[in-house]
């Protein structure tokens, strides 16, 4: 098993500029079956062994993908997501950073009642090691196994995965949900999937300052998750009112602090790693 992406995932890549091409090739190296690329104006061509199309409609009717990976630049990324939603792609991972929040509000509207699940934006994507990589994470630090990882951060996720693999603990699926204020899939959605995935035996959840997603997730874990969960919240030393890289990582009005989030996780029975360097060992002890 694993969640979201598997051996059967058929990927279309939207936006094949320099970054898109580079990462598409990396995804192929780590098991992704890319069946099509969409880049307006390049329809009829070919890249990395897959056919190119001008629109999602063309790509879907000819190659039947069930997942999309988006690298379209920020000004057009929301439009690309909307195009994927209209084409009823089941899973969309949007890597693009810097999409205006108002555009994402429109996307969130379109997602309700649609057939599409969106991961991100501003995220590393999803990987089920050994099966499929739909994102930009370094595939070689991953190892097939049974720990599920869900995170708002990119490189901090790689850090956690690197620690797990170093301890000989593999991962079922790793999901980067993204650092923006409005995202398609939240912690709870992923926790629910991990909890019902028979292959996943433990979960690492990495949060950061800002918003209340960690608190809501903690509440969910307490009521629903039967597997051990280890957590960490980045940003204990972040000053209030400043945007720490991610648009969503900002403490406002005394809300969204790391301390409050850690307390919520602990109250829900989640083992909180004392430092980011202890994520792997804390999980190993919890299994």
């Amino acid at each position, binding site marked *: 098993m694993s969640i979201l992406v598997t051996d059967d995932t058929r990927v279309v890549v939207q936006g094949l500029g320099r970054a898109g091409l580079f990462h598409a090739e990396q995804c192929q190296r780590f098991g992704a079956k890319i069946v099509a690329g969409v880049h307006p104006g390049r329809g009829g061509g070919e890249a990395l062994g897959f056919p190119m199309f001008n629109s999602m409609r063309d790509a879907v009717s000819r190659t039947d993908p069930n997942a999309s990976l988006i690298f379209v630049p920020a000004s057009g990324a929301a439009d690309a997501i909307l195009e994927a939603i209209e084409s009823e792609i089941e899973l969309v991972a949007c890597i693009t950073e810097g999409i205006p929040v108002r555009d994402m509000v429109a996307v*969130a509207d379109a997602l309700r009642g649609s057939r599409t699940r969106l991961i991100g934006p501003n995220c590393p994507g999803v990987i089920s090691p050994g099966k499929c990589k739909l994102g930009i994470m370094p595939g070689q630090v991953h190892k097939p196994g049974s720990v599920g990882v869900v995170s708002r951060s990119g*490189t901090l996720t790689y850090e956690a995965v690197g620690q797990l693999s170093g301890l000989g603990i593999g991962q079922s699926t790793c999901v980067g949900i993204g650092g923006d204020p409005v995202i398609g899939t939240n912690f709870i959605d992923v926790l629910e999937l991990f909890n019902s995935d028979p292959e996943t035996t433990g979960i690492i959840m990495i949060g950061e300052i800002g918003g209340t997603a960690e608190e809501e997730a903690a509440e969910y874990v307490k009521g629903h998750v039967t597997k051990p969960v280890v957590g960490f919240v980045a940003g*204990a*030393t972040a000053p209030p009112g400043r945007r720490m*890289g991610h648009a969503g990582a900002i403490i406002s009005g005394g809300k969204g602090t790391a301390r409050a989030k850690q307390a919520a996780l602990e109250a829900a029975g989640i083992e909180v790693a004392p430092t*980011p*360097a202890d994520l792997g060992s804390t999980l190993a002890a919890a299994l």
Partner: protein
Amino acid sequence: MKVHEYQAKEVLRKYGVPTPRGIVSNTARKAREATELLGGSVVVKAQIHAGGRGKGGGVKLAGNADEAERQATTIIGMNLVTHQTGPQGRKVKRVLIEEQLPINREIYLGIVMDRAAGKPVFMASAQGGMDIEEIAEKNPEAILKETIGSGGMRAFQARRLAFGLGITGEAFGPSVQAMLALSRTYEESDASLIEINPFVLTDDGRAVALDAKMDIDDNSLFRHPDLAALRDPDEEEPLETEAINQGLNYIKLDGNVGCMVNGAGLAMATMDIIQYAGGMPANFLDVGGGANKDQIKHGFRIILSDSNVKAILINIFGGILKVDVLAEGIVAAAQELDIDVPMVLRLEGTNVDRGREILESSGLDFAVAADMKAAAEQAVARAVQHNEQ
């Protein structure tokens, strides 16, 4: 991006939100002229990007032009300290001279993004003048909320708020119109926050935005050149501005361990682990996933411009960004710049062995740590040593 009160009010007026008549002035002389032009009593308001200006002595009443000139003389150039500026305060460059209004009631209005709903929410409270955070804590039911759907706030929602606030009589219509205009301003200018505190009802039945706070979504500035032009570099840490220009993300902090990291989450986690190791981070610096040699060099320069920095911790988890490429960048930058503080490196990921070789053979004085925790401990210890030297 934050904008000044006088700038926010210009934007609000464009969308039809009534504001007091006012003139911005950067000298006491101009403040006098502004007062004469407005006629009658005025308010002299310091323009800085921080709240709490009144309590800090940055907002004064003046009954005539003489008084206004005197107040402006005190306020312009003063170092205004409020609960939001930090103890160092902020130098006041200009004042807004505004007419005084016959205030009958003060109300709080605000629009923010409700992340859980994925939609903006319009908030209103009868307790104008109070901090919304304080009301939320002490009396949350006193805050009325309307979720703004696609197409903006509807008239019935604005009416519901006005009724809920107990607004009656001739101020009702203007209040509803002002709220709808406020919602339009939020949507069309890609704001991430608007606060009108207070929104006042006057004795003569007007509804006016007496104060205004507005933040614009940085990600949207590419399509708002007019709003992007409102950026005030005087209000920003110069090093942070330099970082933005180099495609880096830097925030200055108060500690003495500088850090350079790829990725925002890992950068925050690195700051945290420095504190766990007994030190304090001097900065947040995210060099991003595709940092090149030039960016690394600028990163160093920015970190070293802070004289508090006594050691530098470099924490890179190379994924797409290959560690050997990065190591070359670090060596080149270190050779070009005169770095006289100890450096601790923690490198992991793609081509890490090549990267370590490059560093070791460079002849430069780097300490290489095996993991994040060891790196933080070494950096903190070296900062202490360096400080004692």
